[in-house]
């Protein structure tokens, strides 16, 4: 039994340096996650500010309407479908990875937007009014007073979004990107062994997520301590 497991391990990872598939795949996964996270944060930030401004002042109705369409479409359709539309329809002449980064970024932006908007709306309305009463414009009061407080409160939730995103990118294989998941699949197609490569892939995701979750909960504790 043990000897056969050992042989399986050697066949799947050592022979032909197959472990390199996993390593390269991990690199691709992290790369896509990182850049789409940045796009998602920027996009989500802008959408959140527009929507929160509209909710507190009643202006910006048109911009808010556009944002709501964006949120509805993105949150109402599967990310795989969005990914394929992005690659096969919208950006079909660009690099696969760029298409994936844009697709996951736009997808993540919708969730980030709602996290940040929730953070802004959770701040006491009096903070905003105090800013206005000093003579700040609505936008400046948002920027200098509401956003810093909101971001501090939602930082753990944003970090969680990063963790979710890592796992969501596992569908990148649908447009033939060799990310971590696809790499495991590739090994399986060579060795005709499903168990070892898939277990390895799952374990790597799990380790990543556990490490990041630990960091997030430390962050939460530090923020809670800073708030006293």
């Amino acid at each position, binding site marked *: 039994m043990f000897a056969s497991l050992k042989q399986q391990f050697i066949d799947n990872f050592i022979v032909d340096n197959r472990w390199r598939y996993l390593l390269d795949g991990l690199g691709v996964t992290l790369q896509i996650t990182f850049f789409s996270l940045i796009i998602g944060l920027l996009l989500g930030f802008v959408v959140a500010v527009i929507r929160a401004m509209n909710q507190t002042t009643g202006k910006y109705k048109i911009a808010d309407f556009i944002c709501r369409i964006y949120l509805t479409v993105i949150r109402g359709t599967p990310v795989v479908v969005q990914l394929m539309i992005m690659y096969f329809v919208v950006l079909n002449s660009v690099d696969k990875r760029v298409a994936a980064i844009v697709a996951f970024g736009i997808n993540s932006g919708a969730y980030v937007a709602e996290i940040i908007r929730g953070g802004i709306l959770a701040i*006491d309305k*009096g*903070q905003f*009014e*105090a*800013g*206005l*009463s*000093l*003579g*700040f*414009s609505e936008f*400046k009061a948002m920027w*200098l*007073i509401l956003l*810093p*407080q909101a971001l*501090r409160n939602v930082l753990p939730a944003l970090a969680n979004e990063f963790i979710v995103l890592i796992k969501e990118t596992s569908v990148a294989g649908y447009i033939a990107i060799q990310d971590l998941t696809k790499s495991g699949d590739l090994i399986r197609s060579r060795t005709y062994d499903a168990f070892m490569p898939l277990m390895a892939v799952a374990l790597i995701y799990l380790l990543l997520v556990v490490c990041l979750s630990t960091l997030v909960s430390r962050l939460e504790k530090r923020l809670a301590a800073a*708030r*006293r």
Partner: protein
Amino acid sequence: MQETPVKPASTKPSLTLVPPADAAPPIFEIDGLVKHFGALCVLDGVSTRVDRGEVVAVIGPSGSGKSTFLRCLNRLETPTGGRVRFNGVDLTDPKCDIARQRQRMGMVFQGFHLFDHLDVLRNLTLGPVRLQHRPRAEAEAEAMAALERVGLADRARAFPAQLSGGQKQRVAIVRAMCMNPEVILFDEPTSALDPVMVGEVLSVMRDLARRRMTMIVVTHEMAFAREVATRVLFMEGGRVAAEGSPAEIFERPERECLRSFLRRVA
């Protein structure tokens, strides 16, 4: 701060040239102010004026529209009808740059509303530095002097969460003062405080009144209104039901609604 006959040694000359007091327009001219919240009529035609150096106490039962009246003065509430003029500028005109006008009127809230993410000193300098573009060092020096005056210089680096309610409200008053406003609006500044802290805050407000700061104070503190106010507005049902000097309002109340209100709060 502009024409203070008592203390001419103002630390900083005002940027706006103010004509002699007799020619200056009143700080506030309020004409037929109406405010509805949906079907509910909260202000039903309020007219009055506030001159420089006045301390106007606004009293009345809860729900009489006092706070809404005050919030219409800096347009935190948009009036449904009527007119508010501030230094002759019509604040109800949609084209008026309300943010600019608000820089010249401070406001102190019942719930303090210090900026929780900034320490005391940053709370005080945010407006002067970001809005009046004053050098940080200068703004900080002025803020420290003002903190000294209310006995909180040692809390300059504390965060709002570390302060007591009375301390928070004193900082909030200093924050309003740091903008060198022409008038400060107080919206029930002591209603969220226990009696000891009420005393701290009222003494700061008395000090302001002595320095001839123009103040409009919505309050339930009848002793304060009687002692410090130069004029008292009694509101009921969204109207000014009685108006006069503290003596006229408290010693010789004419209208029955005022008398019954005073009996109830006495």
